């Protein structure tokens, strides 16, 4: 018996009604109940978060319906750029210290890291047709961007921490005649490692410890699991590339801001 003849694949996808969603609110009430019971201060957060989830996703749903229906390349590109801007801002907002220029560096890192990865995947792997087909580009870019954003935020945060704790070592390198690239080699290495380890770990355990959301979603929506895993494999690989590119661009761009043109370490900013 081949997989294609399995009955499960012929099942139509079960649609969820608004009444079903109302019933699902019970799940959030459980979380609110637990939070209130132990006075974690998170009950309100759960309530507000649940409301935001409904509003944001509903809005995105209608927006996607609109973009799919209009089917214009410039609308798709505009949506991708908007996602990019929001992700850049979110990555910088997570930093304790937000030096001017970090937003620009992060924006460039996410644009190149996510953009190049999206082009590679859509043109050379998935063969999206037409090239701007929003049904593929928007979800793919969302996944790429989410991961690249986390990596960029982690990388910037770690680099700043390393540059602060290793000031004496960096100045010792400079005093010996090292340039800033050599002097900051260890902080850069550590920042890159910290930002890429979660991706390496997810490559190791995918399918064993975790079933990725996209693959689960495709299977729930009625796809053949073998098609779903092929997409997921592509997704895992593309996340690797997006994370590595975004992290390295952020780290190299951000590193320069710690030094003057005369290869001097700038005074610590508070």
């Amino acid at each position, binding site marked *: 018996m081949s997989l294609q003849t399995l009955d499960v694949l012929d099942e139509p996808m079960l649609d969820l009604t608004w009444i079903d969603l109302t019933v699902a609110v019970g799940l959030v009430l459980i979380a609110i109940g637990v939070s209130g019971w132990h006075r974690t201060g998170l009950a309100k957060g759960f309530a507000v978060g649940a409301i935001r989830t409904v509003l944001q996703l509903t809005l995105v749903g209608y927006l996607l319906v609109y973009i799919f229906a209009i089917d214009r390349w410039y609308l798709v590109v505009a949506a991708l750029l908007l996602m990019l801007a929001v992700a850049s801002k979110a990555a910088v907002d997570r930093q304790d210290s937000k030096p001017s220029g970090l937003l620009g560096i992060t924006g460039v890192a996410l644009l190149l890291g996510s953009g190049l990865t999206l082009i590679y995947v859509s043109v050379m792997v998935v063969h999206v047709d037409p090239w701007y087909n929003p049904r593929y580009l928007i979800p793919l870019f969302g996944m790429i961007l989410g991961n690249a954003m986390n990596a960029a935020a982690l990388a910037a945060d770690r680099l700043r921490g390393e540059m602060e704790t290793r000031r*004496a*070592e960096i*100045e*010792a390198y*400079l*005093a*010996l005649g*090292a340039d800033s690239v050599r002097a900051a080699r260890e902080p850069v290495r550590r920042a890159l490692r910290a930002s890429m380890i979660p991706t390496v770990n997810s490559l190791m355990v995918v399918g064993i410890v975790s079933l990725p959301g996209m693959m689960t979603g495709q299977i729930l929506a009625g796809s053949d699991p073998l098609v779903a895993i092929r997409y997921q494999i592509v997704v895992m690989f593309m996340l690797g590339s997006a994370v590595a590119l975004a992290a390295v661009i952020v780290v190299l761009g951000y590193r320069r801001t710690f030094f003057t043109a005369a*290869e*001097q370490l700038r005074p610590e900013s508070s």
Partner: protein
Amino acid sequence: MLQDVDATIPRHLITVLCGPSGGGKTSLLRLLNRLDDPVRGEILLDGTSLNDYNVTELRRRVALVFQSPVMFSGTVSDNLAVAAELGGLQEGQFDELSDEVMLLAELDPSLLERPGGELSVGQKQRVNVARALMTSPEVLLLDEPTSALDPETSRSLMKTIHGLSEERRLTIVVATHRVAEASEYAEHALILRDGRVVDSGDAERVLGGFADLEATGP
């Protein structure tokens, strides 16, 4: 912090920068190695402004050793190799030069394979001196090299520094607040107080006057 500093540091001599903590000794050394730049004014090396030299080459010619020794990761040999690489040392010359600087810094060459973190503070300070020598500097700036050391180790390191000046004809600038220790080897002296040079010249005269100044107090 430093103001109205107008001073000359003579070639091939040991110059000591003396003065109370916070007087500007470290700030002056950092300016000489260009880890910082003066807001106003100019520092000349051989008649040329420090700003006109390539900054990384300048730092190899004018090496700075910090008050708290900094060890890079790895062994003592790895530490020296970093400086050798920065100094553009040819392959094959490393062993000879590393043995030489270890001896100059009066460190047992058997320490070369020891991890840097396992050394005593005094040994680390000497490794920092040896590492600075790997780039074959003309000027060696030492910031309070003996501050963390006991009197005996401290005397021994000062003796080493004196030896360096004699054997290598290095120009050495030592910042210290220990006048008695400094006067033993110093040939030239500069007194810094509140960021100003209050006296400079022949060490015997200047340090003698400074000791009196310290004794009478404010």
